[in-house]
C-alpha cells in the first residue's frame, strides 16, 4: 500500500519543489537586477547556515501539514487497503515512513535552494557555529512532531478529517497565544498542558541583528536542546498512538 502513498506524496513534493524554485528564481532576479531606487546589499555578507536550517524547517512543517492525516485519508479505501496480506501495523508504518521521507526531502530541497541562492553571489559566505547541529535537529523535530500529532488526532475515525493538516496552524497559534496571556485557573493550566503537544509552540524564533539569535518558544521550562528532545519524544509517541488507533478502528 506504500505505493499509493508514494504517488500521493510525490505529487505534493513536486508542487512544493516547483513553488520553491519559482520563489527562489524571483528572489534571485530581484537581487541580481534590483529596481533603480532599491538598495540591495548582496556582496560580502555572512549568511548563517542556522537561519537557512530554520527556514528549511519552517517550510518542511508546511509540507508536513500537506501530507499529514494519511491514515485518515486512507479511510475511504479501507476495504481495499485492509484486504492485503500485510498487518495493519505494517501498513500504517509504511505510510508514515513514506510521509516522513517526503518531509525530509522537502527540508533538503528548501535548504539546498536557499544555500545555492544565498551563497551564489561570489563574495557571500555561509557561516556555521556551535548551534548548527542543534538547529538542524529542531528544524527536523518540529515538522515531524506536527505530522505525528495530526496523524494521532485523525487516525481513529473513518470520517474524513483531512483538513486537520491545515487547521492545526490556526489552532496551534491560538493555543500558543492563550498560553501567553493570563487566564484564570484552571483555563491557564489546561492550555498549558495542551500547548505541550502543540507543534507550533516549538517553532524557534530567529532574529538577525548584529548576530543571529535563536530563541526557544516551547511551553516547557527547558533549554533549546531539551525542548527538541521533548518534541522528538512526542513525535514517537504520537506515531505509536496513530498506529494503535488505526489498527483498532472499525470500518
Amino acid at each position: 500500500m506504500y505505493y499509493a502513498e508514494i504517488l500521493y506524496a510525490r505529487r505534493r513534493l513536486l508542487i512544493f519543489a516547483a513553488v520553491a524554485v519559482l520563489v527562489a528564481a524571483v528572489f534571485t532576479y530581484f537581487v541580481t537586477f534590483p529596481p533603480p531606487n532599491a538598495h540591495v546589499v548582496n556582496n560580502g555578507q555572512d549568511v548563517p547556515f542556522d537561519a537557512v536550517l530554520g527556514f528549511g524547517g519552517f517550510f518542511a512543517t508546511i509540507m508536513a501539514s500537506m501530507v499529514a492525516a494519511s491514515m485518515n485519508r486512507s479511510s475511504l479505501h479501507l476495504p481495499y487497503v485492509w484486504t492485503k496480506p500485510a498487518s495493519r501495523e505494517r501498513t500504517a508504518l509504511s505510510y508514515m515512513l513514506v510521509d516522513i521521507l517526503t518531509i525530509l526531502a522537502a527540508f533538503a530541497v528548501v535548504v539546498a535552494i536557499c544555500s545555492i541562492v544565498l551563497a551564489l553571489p561570489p563574495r557571500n559566505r555561509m557561516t556555521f557555529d556551535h548551534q548548527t547541529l542543534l538547529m538542524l535537529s529542531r528544524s527536523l523535530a518540529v515538522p515531524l512532531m506536527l505530522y505525528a500529532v495530526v496523524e494521532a488526532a485523525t487516525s481513529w475515525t473513518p470520517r474524513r478529517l483531512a483538513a486537520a493538516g491545515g487547521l492545526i496552524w490556526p489552532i496551534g497559534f491560538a493555543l500558543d497565544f492563550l498560553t501567553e496571556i493570563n487566564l484564570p485557573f484552571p483555563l491557564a493550566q489546561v492550555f498549558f498542558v495542551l500547548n505541550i503537544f502543540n507543534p507550533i509552540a516549538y517553532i524557534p524564533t530567529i532574529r538577525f541583528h548584529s548576530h543571529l539569535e535563536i530563541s526557544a518558544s516551547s511551553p516547557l521550562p527547558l533549554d533549546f536542546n531539551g525542548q527538541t528532545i521533548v518534541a522528538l519524544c512526542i513525535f514517537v509517541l504520537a506515531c505509536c498512538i496513530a498506529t494503535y488507533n488505526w489498527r483498532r478502528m472499525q470500518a
Partner: protein
Amino acid sequence: MNPAPPVIAFDNLTKRYRNFEAVHDLTLHIQAGSICGLLGPNGAGKTTAMKTLLGFLRPTSGSTAVDGAPVTPQTFEYLSYVPETDALFGELTVAQHVELNRLSQPRHDESRAQELLGVFGLDRRKRVRKLSKGQKTALALVLALASKPRVLVLDEPSSGLDPVFQRVVLDLLIDAASEGGTVLFSSHQVGQVERAADHVAIMRGGRLLVYSDVDSLKGQEKIIEATFPSSIPDLNGALRVDAVRRIDHAGNMVRISVRKDDGEIAQRLAPYNPTSIRVVDRNLEDIFLDVVSEKN
C-alpha cells in the same frame, strides 16, 4: 464420515450498534467450491455480515472463520474482497492500481490482470475518478480476480454494470467456483443469484430466514397455473387443502402455490373445465418475495 469443514463460517454471529442489531445470531456455513448468493432487502445485514467476516467490524457475539480460523492478514493471500462502495484511489490510474496490486499481492498474476482489463475494456491510462460506477466495479473485480483467490467475497459485484458485463461477472464467478474456489456474493438482483449460485441465503432485519441449495429450494414448492375460458369460477371449496400456500389471480388465470404436487389439485380443478393446467417450478424471485414479505 464427517463432512468437510466449511471454508466460510458464521457461527451465532451477532453485531449490534448501540441499540440497533444489524445481524442477529447468524449461522451460515459455506463449503468449498460453492457459490452462495446472499439476498435481502436494504438493511438486511448482508454487508455487516461480510465486513465482520473480513475483520472490519468486531462481532458483538459469535464468531466468523475462513478455513476454520479467524481472518488474519495472511488470509488475504488467497481471499479477495470486492466492496459495495468505491474503495479505489481516485487519483491513481487503472495501470497504477494494477501495479499496486502487483506490489501488495504475492499471488498477483499480471497476464490475468491484463486479460481481464481487456475483457472489461478498461483504459489503463485513465484515472479512477474519471471512470463510471460500472467501470470502477469492473476494476475492483479485475484486481480481486487477478490475485487468483481461492475465496471470493463480493458485495454487490455487478452494481452499475450493464447487462452484458453483469453476465460476464457471473460467468467469472462460476469459473472461479469450477476451479475449486468458494464464492460468497450479495445482490439485490434475484436473477443473478438464480443464475450463478448453487446455494442461497436470504436475510431480513439481520436474521437469516432461509439457507438452502437453490434447486431443492425451488423444488420444495410448485406453482399450478390454471387458465379458464372466461372468468375464474369460485374455487374456494376445491382448493381448501393443506398443501395450498397461496392463490393469485391474474385475468382468467389462477396461480396456486403448493407445497407438493401429487396431482390432487389438478384433479380438484378438472370439474371447473380449465382450458389448460400446467405445473411449473417456483422461481427464486417468488420464493424471495414470499420470504421477505412474511410476517415474523
